[in-house]
């Protein structure tokens, strides 16, 4: 046991150069697709939640929900068939996968804000925009963050597959390791990927803790 751990540690050091390079590549793909997806999904979610857009929202939601069911590998493969091998396909595939939970949760979170709060805001003389930013979004933030966290978890979790469509990243270690039956390589890739995923999730948790009002946190605990 100690022997194999020792061996593992040595192999890890052996692959360190690869690991750091691939990690950077991995993070780039995650960052680009993730940030892009969140930047588009948040406004989309807000748009879908407005009462005026009710009908289109329902249709959009159906499409998004269907999209979420599609296996991520298939998404990447479809992206690859469209624009060819490379990190572009990976980014597009990951973008779509990340988009859906954020948009859905943003919309649901905003819709779930108690109606009487919105009425009170209107009655006090807030414009619709002021109501959105001062009342609706802060009160929906917990659900919105849950969506972002889920989406990023999906993103980071699917990112290893980027290797399969030529996008590089830590998946290289895992899948090449599987092909070559090289446990060291496999583990190096697996551990790095897992740690990265956990780190991203924890990071989101911290940001959520800072961003969400203390009052809501207390209310949630009751």
């Amino acid at each position, binding site marked *: 046991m100690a022997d194999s751990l020792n061996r593992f540690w040595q192999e890890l050091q052996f692959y360190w150069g690869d690991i750091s390079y691939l990690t950077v590549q991995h993070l780039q793909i995650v960052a680009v697709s993730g940030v892009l997806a969140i930047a588009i999904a948040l406004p989309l979610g807000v748009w879908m939640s407005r009462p005026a857009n009710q009908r289109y929202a329902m249709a959009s939601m159906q499409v998004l929900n269907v999209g979420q069911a599609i296996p991520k590998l*298939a998404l990447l493969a*479809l992206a690859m*068939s469209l624009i060819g091998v490379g990190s572009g396909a990976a980014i597009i595939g990951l973008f779509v996968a990340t988009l859906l939970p954020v948009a859905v949760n943003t919309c649901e979170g905003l819709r779930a804000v108690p109606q009487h709060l919105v009425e009170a805001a209107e009655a006090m003389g807030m414009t619709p925009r002021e109501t959105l930013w001062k009342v609706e979004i802060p009160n929906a933030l917990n659900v919105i963050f849950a969506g972002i966290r889920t989406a990023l978890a999906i993103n980071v979790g699917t990112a290893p597959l980027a290797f399969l469509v030529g996008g590089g990243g830590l998946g290289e270690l895992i899948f090449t390791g599987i092909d070559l039956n090289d446990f060291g390589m*496999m583990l190096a890739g697996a551990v790095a990927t897992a740690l990265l995923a956990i780190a991203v999730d924890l990071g989101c948790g911290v940001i959520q803790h800072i961003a969400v009002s203390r009052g809501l946190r207390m209310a949630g605990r009751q």
Partner: protein
Amino acid sequence: METLRFIQENGGLISLLLGQHLLIVAIAVGLAILTGVSVGVAISQHPRTRRWVLAFAAVLMTIPSAALFGLMIPVLSQIGYGIGVVPAVIALFLYAQLPIIRNTTTAISNIDPALREAAIGMGMSTGQRLRKVELPVAVPLIMAGVRMATVINIGIAAIAAYIGAGGLGSLIIRGIAQSDTRQLLAGAIVISVIAIAADYALYGLQRLLTPNGLNKNKLATGRMKEVTT
């Protein structure tokens, strides 16, 4: 298109792969329901254990499936089941835990306390209460968890093709390896269709199992709210 012709011509192969695919998903989800619902029910009475179990399952969920395979193979190779169906089913089983456990325990914990008190007041034992009152009310949300787990599993089973578990992922792998767009697309499209179909079918089942009085839980999107904590 070429791909459609490919699908038509290779119907036999595709059906075989589909069968393999659905089989491992079915086994994994089936087992997961047994363990997940039991655990979910058990921890719903103990808030502290509940938090730990949910946190553990959530961490498990965070681990990318490729990474989980990467971790399991060296370990399972020691007992000769490094690649193939076994590690695939195990991985799928593990990934199905969180949605099912979380939805089960949330559904039971969120049951109107008045309902629980009425049941106890009527003299039901814990077992009877769970069976006759709480579980029936919790079933819709549990089904939502099963649905989520199934869809996730269909996706991960595709990746499992890489460790020799068979299934529709094989088409995608071969398509990439041989630069054959037809196989690639055939695999991607069939698996997408299956996943969407399973999602809808299970949603229908979920609606069917929802006691009529509970349908107000439906949101404007037409779907039951899925638990996202």
